[in-house]
């Protein structure tokens, strides 16, 4: 009894220790986290100031010492004696700033989030794996290893990351590990492949086939083709109309028989349609300097830590500066002394669905081409934090994985159940070779060769060289399709519906030194209908591309600053077109509507941060689309459909005022175009008043849009930057929306002397540590539409007052 009494406090102490050493739901381990000797207090980093500091770090595996100098933005400039050391240093230094992000993103890509967050991550993880993310990464890794240079890069990069991981004690772990209470595991080259494949997920996983089939089933082919046309009413394609074709096309496969299919249903969010990008290059005869200038701003989900990490990588045969993607070797978008390049996404259709007919419930065989064929199976194991492991079987036909069986619930509403997925992201590929060679390219021929290795996600690679060339290749591996193949769900039993090979890479759309003196892309249609192959029926709306092309056509004496102006252009070309059409339909508006109309009439059509007109217009577009189409196209949430595009709506207003679609089928009355416009105006003004009070400064565009750069952990507002005062919009050149926007802005002016001038910025900072001043220090510059001069050094000893820190990595 006495012993129990005297040991009782000890039991309490032990229990308290246990309780404070582990996480409870979302509450992190309080003892470990708050201990100033171990927890978050250790993660504070003060800004560097004064004379550059010098430091030497020992790293196993280096052949020779590597010199690293950091500038005031925190960009490491890396000087190595060979490629191996260069990539080892790249891995090490990237991990030093971004380890948690690298691992978290690859965990996400590989469907392993539930290992960190537990059961709530399982549905997303299963979706990733069912879509074949791990399978695709394995295939792609096989391809990458075939190129010795890429293989060296992957291995050395991985060694570098691991050298950093093994140098860390628990108390030095990045903050997020402490908050979520786990530890980094060893990096492997396949993680780099997973990261690259995840870019296909981000950029090339959009699929409307299911919704199109649902529309086909409800309204028939004629209506589907009329409302969802295969080329927009208004477009300014990437490859200028009339560009010469320098190849002899291969024969196009015959179309398979029409297939209606079963369609299907379900619900939850999809790929953000606002992810897109701009790039362009202007030739020397349009610039003040007489040499080309290149500009690029890839639009992605705005996140912290940033998706990009700037670096300068120097070794014999290479001196390249640009943005890298934490998790993969090489610079992805950048420049060297001779050339510059950038990318935007290509919206071609590289993802199709095949309705599967299994023989029986065992799913061992499926019907194809008049025979029963064997499925293959892949077992995926899930380790779920706080729960038992889960095992999942994925069935594959020769097309690819059956993502959801017909009785399962899909994770996203656009994913059909009972269908096999044929996707370019599952092909063996060599993207790393492309970037390795681009980093070292000297001229157009080098660039062209580098692109021939690239598969996915397809990109518009813009290019400029100091020899005066500008070019753009719409580049990637494109299936050789019959016209419209894969616009709708396909018949998995019909061999004629299979992909029949690929378009020869040399036939990919391209243009070099066009007469108009510039090349550009903004995710719009790659080509006009005269191009001999079918690439896809749906691309990003044409507005950004049209605006960029109309500006570049008239701009002369171009400087980097005038292109910076264009990157930040907030002019609303859609409003210019649509507003007069809408004004003409307005009849007897009430007081609030009249006030809104007055604001629109005096609006300068610029989506500036403070603009009230921009808010009313953008909200009107949404309510107009809803008022016009939702009665027919979102009547049944179990049969998801898309609304026709805004481009089609504008065409309808202009030339089909009596179309059946104007009538709201949910009311007994027969509505006219004017009725629907008024209904949408009412919904627009009512919703703004309801959510933001009466019309006034509270309706400023930036307050409604609420652009934020959010931490990768959902809901982690404390580590995010919200409500950033910035203009723009989804169809604006400055494509900043609530969650997406220009994730990296780059402008490069080439020079004959090999001293290019470059400016860039991204909405974040070099460090992934929320305790560092470099965590988000570039966001304000970015929001103001300004750029930072990029420091391009010739040697580690070059003098510059911008250097803050020198590190020697030695073996």
């Amino acid at each position, binding site marked *: 009894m006495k012993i129990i009494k005297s040991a009782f406090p000890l039991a309490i102490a032990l229990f308290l220790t246990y309780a404070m050493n582990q996480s409870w739901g979302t509450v992190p381990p309080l003892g470990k986290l708050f201990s*100033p*000797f*171990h927890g978050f207090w250790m993660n*504070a980093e003060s800004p560097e100031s004064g004379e550059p500091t010098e430091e030497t770090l020992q790293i196993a595996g280096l052949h020779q010492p590597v010199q690293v100098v950091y500038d005031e933005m925190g960009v490491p400039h890396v000087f190595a004696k060979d490629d191996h050391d260069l990539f080892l240093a790249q891995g090490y230094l990237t991990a030093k700033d971004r380890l948690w992000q690298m691992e978290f993103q690859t965990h996400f890509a590989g469907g392993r989030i539930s290992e960190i967050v537990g059961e709530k991550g399982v549905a997303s993880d299963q979706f990733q794996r069912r879509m074949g993310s791990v399978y695709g990464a394995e295939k792609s890794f096989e391809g990458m290893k075939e190129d010795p240079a890429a293989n060296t890069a992957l291995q050395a990069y991985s060694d570098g990351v691991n050298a950093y991981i093994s140098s860390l004690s628990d108390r030095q772990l990045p903050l997020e590990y402490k908050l979520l209470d786990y530890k980094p595991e060893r990096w492997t080259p396949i993680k780099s492949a997973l990261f690259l494949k995840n870019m296909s997920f981000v950029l090339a996983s959009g699929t409307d086939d299911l919704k199109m089939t649902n529309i086909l089933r409800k309204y028939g082919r004629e209506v589907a083709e009329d409302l969802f046309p295969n080329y927009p009413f208004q477009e300014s394609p990437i490859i200028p109309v009339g560009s010469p074709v320098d190849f002899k096309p291969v024969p196009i496969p015959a179309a398979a028989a029409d297939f209606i299919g079963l369609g299907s249903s379900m619900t939850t969010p999809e790929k953000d349609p606002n992810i897109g990008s701009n790039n362009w290059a202007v030739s020397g005869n349009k610039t003040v300097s007489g040499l080309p200038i290149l500009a690029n701003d890839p639009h992605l989900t705005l996140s912290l830590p940033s998706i990009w990490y700037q670096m300068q990588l120097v070794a014999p045969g290479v001196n390249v500066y640009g943005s890298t993607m934490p998790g993969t070797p090489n610079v992805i978008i950048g420049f060297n002394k001779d050339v510059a390049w950038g990318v935007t996404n290509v919206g071609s259709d590289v993802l199709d669905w095949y309705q599967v007919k299994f023989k029986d419930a065992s799913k061992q065989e499926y019907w194809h081409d008049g025979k029963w064929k064997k499925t293959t199976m892949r077992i995926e194991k899930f380790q779920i934090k706080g729960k038992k492991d889960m095992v999942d079987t994925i069935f594959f036909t020769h097309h690819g994985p059956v993502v959801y069986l017909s009785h399962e619930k899909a994770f996203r509403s656009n994913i059909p159940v009972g269908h096999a997925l044929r996707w370019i992201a599952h092909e063996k590929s060599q993207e790393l070779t492309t970037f390795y060679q681009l980093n070292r390219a000297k001229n157009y021929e080098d660039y062209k060769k580098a692109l021939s290795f690239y598969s996915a996600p397809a990109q518009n690679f813009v290019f400029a060289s100091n020899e005066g060339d500008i070019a753009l290749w719409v580049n990637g591996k494109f299936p050789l399709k019959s016209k419209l193949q894969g616009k709708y769900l396909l018949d998995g039993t019909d061999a004629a519906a299979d992909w029949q090979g690929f378009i020869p890479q040399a036939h990919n759309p391209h243009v070099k030194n066009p007469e108009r003196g510039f090349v550009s892309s903004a995710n719009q249609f790659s080509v006009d209908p005269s191009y001999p192959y079918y690439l896809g029926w749906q691309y990003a709306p044409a507005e950004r591309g049209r605006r960029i092309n109309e500006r570049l056509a008239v701009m002369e004496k171009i400087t980097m600053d005038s292109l910076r102006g264009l990157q930040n252009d907030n002019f609303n070309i859609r409003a210019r077109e649509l507003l007069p059409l809408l004004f003409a339909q307005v009849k007897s508006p009430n007081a609030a509507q009249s006030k809104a109309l007055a604001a629109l009439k005096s609006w300068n059509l610029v989506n500036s941060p403070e603009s009230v007109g921009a808010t009313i217009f953008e909200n009107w577009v949404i309510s107009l689309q809803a008022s016009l189409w939702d009665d027919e196209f979102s009547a049944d949430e179990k049969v998801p459909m898309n609304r026709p595009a805004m481009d089609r709506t504008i065409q309808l207003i202009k030339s089909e005022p009596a179309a059946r679609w104007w009538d709201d089928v949910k009311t007994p009355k027969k509505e006219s175009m004017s009725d629907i416009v008024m209904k949408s105006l009412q919904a627009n003004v009512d919703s703004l008043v309801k959510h933001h009070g009466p019309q006034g400064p509270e309706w400023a565009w930036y307050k409604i849009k609420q652009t934020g750069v959010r931490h990768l952990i959902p809901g982690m507002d404390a580590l995010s930057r919200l409500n950033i005062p910035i203009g723009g919009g989804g169809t604006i050149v400055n494509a900043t929306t609530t969650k997406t926007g220009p994730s990296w802005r780059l402008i490069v002016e080439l020079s004959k002397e090999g001293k290019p001038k470059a400016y860039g910025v991204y909405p974040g900072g070099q460090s992934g540590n929320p305790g560092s001043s470099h965590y988000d220090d570039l966001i304000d510059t970015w929001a103001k539409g300004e750029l930072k001069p990029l420091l391009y050094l010739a040697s580690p000893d070059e003098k510059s007052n911008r250097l803050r820190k020198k590190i020697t990595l030695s073996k």
Partner: protein
Amino acid sequence: MNKLIYGLILVVIGALVGIYLPWYAMGVAFGLIAFALNMPLKSSFLIGFMAGYLLWIFSALWLDMQHPSTLPGRMAQVFPLKGNVFALFMLTGVLGGLFSGIWTWAGARLRQK
């Protein structure tokens, strides 16, 4: 020995243990010291609490002065303290104090037959 000296011993040992060992070693060390020095049971919790409280709060303050950053402000939002950094320091101290106090008390109690 008076309370102040006990407290000083705990602070010094706590700092050393904190620098070299896992975070919970501080508690175990305090328990052992309380046991070895036969600390008065009545004031043991208070002595331990004050030692842990002061050690954690001043270490956190020192780190924050060495590396001024926005991190405390952010952490005061991660935890629902409305961004109040003062409250974050207090919370750090109280957690350190509670943990140390209980262990010191446990050590002292074990020694009492």
